[in-house]
């Protein structure tokens, strides 16, 4: 760490959102403050993440041996279903938009709150309610359908699939309300000076995410409801025995669930655009290209859902249309990757923890994205569909990238959230463990998929064991990494050095206010004259990346 530059020692804002207007539990649960709601979302999604992580570990332990290891097939089928449902609906979709988005978006716009604070709180309680319904279903037997709920299996299984469907349905409304709030806030509550061309890139990406949330989630909600109706009453909508078309379900499901991948990845890109500028102390290369490519992903992402159906009996014409459109989504991601790398050119790169996660993110995004495009070259998908290759691919692109971004965001904005700094040394240890653990978990799975091991297999032919053991070993490294991060962050919460308003020397608007921010975000309504990613005109006495002093 470099020594603290000359200037005032960092101060912990005495009056901040954590202690105003009150500190009691009641004041949190009834709060309308977007920052507190964001923090509550973060805590709730982290709990969900821990739960999903435990399920993941159980899966990896079970797959250590070709036959039964610690559970029977029924338990295994339920656990991978719950792993998917919890991770996707309760962690990855809400984590960054509802957590960090809620906390940061109004501050980045210089607003005092989101447009509809009551809806915002309602969104949080809908999330809790949906999670509770799903949890009830899990305790009372869970579901064994996989998170994709493919009919007619999902409509005939005897497990508790209806509560899980309803839980996901309710959480969907939480997602819609959050997205609605963000779009209206971005349109109507920007502080003077923040024009559309001076919006932080984080806001652009979250805005694009919100568009998807609003337009895709209702279709999923209706579809899940139809499956629940089908399961409960036998109305025959997707039931082949009653003339229904099970492939139609897959169309509806992926109309949401493919864009949902972008609901997860766009916020990750949002975080990374901020991090790469802040830690290379450099203006973003191609602001417009990066901003518009977010909208491009949101839009074109809707045109590609059929690439999940190449082997499903879908017409070859549809397969062609969806395949070629998928190639175009890849382009928007490529634009971002190139522009981020170009941003490093002639920068001043500081290898703090968030930047390490940026490097991991770049790796997972590149290989996850390229394998995704490879999967869209239809004939290869026929071999890979429903094998571990697909599992590894989407864990790279959705999980790897999203977790990297989530952790980068957690470290980068930790001082803003809590007013304190974490230990950089332990941050390095955690980042190395997590990134390498992730690679070692999922790289073998690409090879398993090549070799032909189908996914959702409780038992497998013995020739796949070596790679499975390798994958499980990687998962244990991953688990250790997450525990390390959890511990040092909790320690930092109490004992970390005081951060001051801008420990990274970032030019983002959110660093202009004190840490933690006051209830109304800014003491006076700010007026910004520069962009949020401009570093060429840094004042002479730059606020350096200070270690800070113990409070």
């Amino acid at each position, binding site marked *: 760490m*470099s020594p603290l*530059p000359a200037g005032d020692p960092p101060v912990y804002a005495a009056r901040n959102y954590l202690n105003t207007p009150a500190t009691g539990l009641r004041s949190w649960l009834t709060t309308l403050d977007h920052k507190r709601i964001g923090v509550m979302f973060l805590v709730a999604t982290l709990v969900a993440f821990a739960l999903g992580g435990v399920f993941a570990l159980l899966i990896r332990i079970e797959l250590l041996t070709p036959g039964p290891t610690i559970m029977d*097939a029924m338990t295994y*089928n339920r656990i991978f279903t719950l792993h998917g449902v919890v991770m996707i609906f309760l962690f990855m979709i809400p984590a960054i938009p509802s957590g960090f988005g809620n906390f940061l978006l109004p501050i980045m716009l210089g607003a005092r709150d989101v447009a509809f604070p009551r809806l915002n709180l309602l969104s949080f309680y809908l999330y809790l309610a949906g999670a509770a319904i799903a949890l009830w279903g899990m305790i009372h037997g869970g579901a*064994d*359908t*996989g998170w994709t709920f*493919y009919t007619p*299996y999902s409509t005939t299984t*005897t497990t508790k699939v209806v509560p899980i469907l309803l839980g996901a349905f309710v959480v969907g409304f939480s997602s819609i309300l959050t997205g609605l709030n963000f779009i209206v806030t971005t349109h109507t509550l920007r502080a003077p000076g923040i024009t559309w061309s001076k919006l932080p890139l984080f806001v652009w990406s979250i805005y694009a995410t919100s568009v998807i949330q609003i337009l895709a989630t209702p279709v999923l909600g209706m579809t899940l409801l139809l499956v629940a109706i089908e399961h409960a009453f036998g109305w025959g909508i997707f039931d*082949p025995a009653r003339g229904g078309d*099970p492939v139609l379900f897959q169309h509806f499901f992926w109309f949401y669930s493919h864009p949902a991948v972008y609901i997860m990845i766009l916020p990750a890109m949002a975080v990374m655009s901020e991090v790469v500028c802040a830690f290379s102390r*450099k*203006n973003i*290369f*191609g602001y417009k290209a990066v901003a518009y490519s977010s909208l491009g992903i949101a839009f074109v992402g809707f045109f590609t859902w059929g690439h999940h159906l190449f*082997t*499903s*009996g879908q017409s070859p014409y549809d397969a062609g249309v969806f*395949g070629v459109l998928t*190639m*175009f989504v*890849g*382009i928007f991601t*490529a*634009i971002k*990757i*190139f*522009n981020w790398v*170009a941003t*490093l050119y*002639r*920068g*001043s*790169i*500081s*290898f703090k923890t968030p930047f390490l996660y940026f490097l991991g993110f770049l790796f997972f995004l*590149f*290989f996850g994205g390229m394998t995704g495009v*490879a999967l869209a*070259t*239809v*004939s*290869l998908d*026929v*071999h890979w*569909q*429903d*094998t571990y290759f697909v599992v590894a691919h989407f864990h790279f692109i959705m999980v790897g990238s999203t977790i990297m971004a989530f952790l980068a965001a957690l470290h980068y904005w930790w001082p803003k959230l809590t007013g304190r700094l974490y230990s950089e040394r332990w941050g390095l240890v955690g980042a190395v463990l997590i990134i390498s653990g992730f690679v070692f978990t999922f790289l073998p799975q690409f*090879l398993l998929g*090549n*070799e*032909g091991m*189908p*996914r959702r*297999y409780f038992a497998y*032919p013995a020739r796949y064991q070596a790679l499975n053991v390798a994958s499980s070993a990687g998962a244990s490294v991953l688990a250790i990494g997450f525990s390390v991060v959890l511990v040092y962050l909790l320690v930092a919460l109490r004992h970390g050095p005081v951060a001051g308003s801008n420990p990274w020397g970032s030019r983002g608007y959110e660093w202009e206010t004190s840490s933690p921010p006051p209830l109304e975000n800014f003491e006076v309504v700010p007026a910004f004259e520069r962009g949020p990613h401009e570093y*060429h005109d840094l004042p002479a006495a730059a606020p*350096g*990346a200070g270690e800070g002093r113990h409070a």
Partner: protein
Amino acid sequence: MSDLLRRLLFLPPAASQHARDVDSLHFFVVITTMLAGLAIFGTALAFMIRYRRRGEDDRTPEIQPRHWHEALFIGVPLAFFLVWFAIGYPQFVESTRAPPGAMDVFVMGKQWMWKFAYPGGPSSLDELRVPAGRPVRLLITSRDVIHSFFVPDLRLKQDALPGRYTETWFQADAPGRHQIFCAEYCGLSHSGMLAELVVMKPEEFDAWIALQRRGLARAQDAAAVPGDLLAAGSSLVEQGRNVAAVQGCLKCHSIDGSRHIGPTWRDLYRRRERLSTGAVVTADEAYLTRSMMDPAAEIVDGYQNVMPTYQGKLTPPEVAAVVEFIKSLKTPAVRAGPSEGPVYESTPGR
């Protein structure tokens, strides 16, 4: 070269021309991806070394892209992606359209087995026999939920949809055996839904199928009901074993005492079983018959309600044969000591 790449990527041996074509695209995709990755990460690494932070008062210039930068960023990857697609899509279309004159095999997936029916009526369970060097068209359907017919060695996969047919085709190079998987999650024993593709020499296949047809004709002559599984002339126990194998009973019920999806049949007859309701029944002929007709009514404690009903699927003689078969699986009660006193019925713990 391609064999080395295949091994590096853990790809199974390619058993058809189509598989080799797909592999070629695979190698092309992997190589271009790796080269692009090297270029991007190499550049990033160079920047990170060259432009690492040297002091807290580092200043950076503002750099904006020119239009040709962005055009390059879009054009180069798009060109590669479209080339991939232009190779892959025709391969896919080709794999959906069987050449005229291909032999038709009907494939039916059901929980949790594959059934194959050949021209002229013969059928087989969990084993697909085809001739080498001739095109074979598969017409795939399912009887319950969606399954997916997957042969890694042929780079071939096609979902089985209940109530309708999907089709695909292949032409295997040479005699050999290849694994068949179910690739679409279909419930409890999804991972046990395995089968084998046996590629035979064409003349051997012709002989085999002729033999099958003759056997079928004989069975049809002998049996009262066409397609009846009871072959005349064998003992009832043997018939029961056949019925149990063909109907898939043995997929869930072991006959060696090991616990599987359903209770084992070994020593099942006259065993006292605790039901999920708490009641206790003796597994006599009546109970065994009831369990085949209405499996959900009396479930042995600790097992899932997953067994389909066989009402209407088994003829009364077949049911009797299966019961006889189960009865034959009763081992004599073995005692260590001398055979003294009353003999108790063995009640092995579940």
